[in-house]
């Protein structure tokens, strides 16, 4: 109670010069609070990830060794090496200790450090998800602005209708459909062909060639959400008085839209984009499966069959971490972008 009152009283006594500092103080506290919250979420994710995957049915050693000549001693050796026979609290402490040291453990299946595996896969996923998101955001915003500006026009009806139809399509199905429809134009999977001649240019072309279909699929399925947010927030702005003023000043329609309406309407959209960024990586799972894209989503999916516990925990922490970090960024960015948030 006293705490809450103190800064206000301070500000009153010492006048305007203190207001700036108290503002900075508030900002700092806000940032610290958000970062602290994010760290707490991350800790919860770690605990949850550990417990969740212990509940998942299945014995990793049984799944791995099935159908291979194995005797009881070998199986016992393997269990001991994976630490599967230790009591749960011991396993958890071990896991926590590893995490603190930045070690995500060793995959049961690949027999390689989880961090290394994730590092290997994060590039392709970022390339695919990043490219598609950038294009989807650009496309969504552009179409959204046009649609809102000419609301209920044929353009609006068609573009919104198409976007919603694509959004409703199952990703898996759309991907396979594209694969069949495009015939021989694009490769049916992977990130590069095994027979590409060495050299930077052929490799870049090869990767780009492989990226077309997965990118198209991802864009088609997600761009609608950006379009709709942009469209609705611009529609809200369109009745505002300042736009009438701008028009009255004699500005052309195009200028009113570009310089006045869109910047204001962009705020909720930016938040939305950042909220989605965190989910983009996990959202790539289906696309990666259809197009055999060697990314993180696929790695997670593979880890589930086993279950490859260290790999599952690792990918879970990384994927959930991405969401938390992006949410944090959205929070902080909104404060920078919007003076109203800062003031409140």
């Amino acid at each position, binding site marked *: 109670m006293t705490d809450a009152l103190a800064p206000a009283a301070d500000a009153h006594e010492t006048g305007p010069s203190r207001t700036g500092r108290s503002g900075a103080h508030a900002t700092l506290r806000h940032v610290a609070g958000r970062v602290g919250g994010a760290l707490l979420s991350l800790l919860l994710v770690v605990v949850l990830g550990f417990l969740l995957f212990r509940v*998942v*049915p*299945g*014995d990793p050693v*049984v*799944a*791995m*060794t*099935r*159908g*291979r*000549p*194995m*005797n*009881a001693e*070998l*199986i*016992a*050796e393997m*269990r001991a*090496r994976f630490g599967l*026979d230790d009591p749960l609290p011991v396993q958890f402490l071990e896991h926590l200790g590893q995490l603190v040291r930045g070690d995500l453990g060793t995959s049961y*299946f*690949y*027999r*390689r450090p989880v961090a290394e*595996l994730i590092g290997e*896969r994060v590039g392709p996923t970022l390339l695919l998800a990043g490219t598609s998101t950038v294009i989807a955001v650009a496309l969504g915003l552009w179409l959204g602005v046009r649609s809102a500006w000419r609301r209920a026009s044929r353009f609006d009806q068609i573009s919104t209708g198409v976007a919603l139809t694509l959004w409703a399509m199952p990703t898996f199905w759309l991907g*396979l459909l594209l*694969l*069949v429809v495009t*015939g*021989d*134009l694009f*490769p*049916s*999977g*992977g*990130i*590069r*062909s*095994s*027979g*590409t*001649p060495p050299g930077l*240019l052929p490799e870049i*072309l090869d990767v*780009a*060639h492989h*990226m077309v279909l997965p990118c198209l699929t991802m864009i088609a399925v997600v761009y609608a959400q950006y379009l709709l947010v942009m469209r609705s927030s611009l529609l809200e702005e369109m009745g505002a008085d300042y736009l009438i003023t701008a028009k009255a000043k004699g500005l052309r329609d195009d200028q009113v839209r570009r310089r006045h309406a869109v910047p204001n309407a962009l705020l909720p959209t930016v938040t939305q984009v950042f909220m989605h960024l965190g989910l983009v990586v996990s959202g790539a799972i289906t696309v990666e*499966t*259809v*197009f*055999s894209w*060697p990314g993180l989503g*696929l790695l997670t999916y*593979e880890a589930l*069959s*086993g*279950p490859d516990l260290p790999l599952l925990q690792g990918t879970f922490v990384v994927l959930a971490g991405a969401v938390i970090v992006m949410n944090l960024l959205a929070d902080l960015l909104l404060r920078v972008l919007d003076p109203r948030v800062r003031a409140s």
Partner: protein
Amino acid sequence: MVTVRARRWSLAAVVGVLGAVVAPAATTPVAAAQPVGQQGVTLRVALTRQVDSLNPFLSITQVGTEVGRLMYDFLTAYDPKDQRPVEGLANGWTTSDDDLTWTFTVPEGKKWSDGEEITAEDVAFTYNLMLTNEVARTANGNFVANFESVTAPDPRTLVVRTKTPQATMLALDVPIVPEHVWAGVTDVENHANDQAPVVGSGPFLLAEHRPNEFIKLTANPNYWRGAPKISELHFVSYKNLDAAVQALGKGEVDLINRLGPAQYDSLRDADDIGLNKGRGSRFNELVFNSGAATSTGEPIGDGHPALQDVRVRQALAKAVDVDTIVERVNGGYAEPGTGLMPPSNARFHFTPARPRTFDLDAANADLDAAGYARGADGIRVGPDGRALNLRLVGHANRAYDEQAAEFLKRSFADVGVGVDVQLVDDNQLNDTSTSGAFDLLFSSWGTNPDPDFILSLHTCARRPNAAGTGGTTDTFFCDETYDRLYAQQATEVDQDARAEIVKEMQQRFYDQVPAVILGYDNVLEAYREDRFASFQVQPDPGGSIMEQNGVWGYYGATPTDAATAPRGTSTGLVVAVVAGVVIVLAGGAWLIGRRRRATAEDRE
């Protein structure tokens, strides 16, 4: 002004990227068929499952070991025709009178890929590493578990002493590694072994490994059986079979396997696609919970007690219509089941003297005679008053389980037994089977040329320990006669005598019915016949190209004349690049021009 220029450039860049991406499409089929500047033919194989590791001591998956055996030969190999043991690194062997000492000869003239001579010392080093290093026995420890000592008194002679006579001494599926390389590997666990050059002895050598993308192997020109007829072998990863089938159709890969009956049939009329239906080594079975227990005999799980009565199991086996399941569920692509060894393994395959036939009347009569009378609802009731309602557990992701379950449900209903089908995911199913929490269960196993492992699964010792772990059985079968015969065959070094014991064991299994073998799946494979004329199948005739017990399929791949003919592929790529650049420039110029016009209008 600055912003306008920046905008122009960014637009030009976008157009450029689009142009470059679309341009290669026009020429890719040509470009992909053969890399620039490469002599000879590349065989590209689609893999639909993951390679775990290329370290031969750690690789445990079927596909990982399949790639591994192309790089490292074993001490002995399996004949492509009838799978009998033939020359591997060793070309001769003798046993002592007490069958405890085996002496192998590793002949002169076989070389590692770096030119070093392959010696008996390399073999001794490999086996001894597994005997002394826990990590090194991860994948193949079972093969050396009965070894007393391994020595190489001279570079040509390997002497293995076993604790008890061991029937599987010519079926040691252990990749032999070069001592001069692996003696320097201090940490086997963290040795990925995937950086070329990897010194090997097999027909192919590792050139490049991009995990989850592809594995490139090149032909080993010094392979002791002679160089392969192809120059490169690529394994390309696909995450789903449908995409792999597409890739075959487009000519991106040359060979795929594990096709389902529907996919196989759909390729029947496709151009340039050859098909191979081989006799497989895998079987599907219906397991009865005949009394799950731990290795100490402590009962576990909650199986229906009626199934512990062998008369019930025998009667129910008569209500399993094996032929119809093969015809309808396998689409005819299987052979009806009898014993644990498939017909493709002629030496150990068993045909019952009095085969069981599908006979509902006989099944009903047997159940009546055993005292399981029908209740008011038509379901039979056991002497303990429990109705014969059985849970049938299967894999949710296998169409086979779902469809076969329907046939079983119908015919079991006709003999007064209720079936509740529960399809669950693989992990759940593993848990259910190891804990004995089922009545009926679908299971499937692959078999090796040597019957020891598949027979061992049904011995008392393979049941889980008191903690419920370490078990490998799913029948929980524990039968004195069967166990005695198992011990007998394990030490019978004369393979013909051993085959008789193995058949006797399968007869016992057949009579006691811990499981009904439903059928041996055919192996369904497809390849580009415009590029490849033939492959060496195993067994021959009627075998498979991939997933063999050997390297024959890839090693014996013979390209067509058309595939070996040189082509001007580099021209294709050059045209693609030039076309791409032209599109980029044209698009950029157009956009900039348009932009300029637009700005001019703006200024008005």
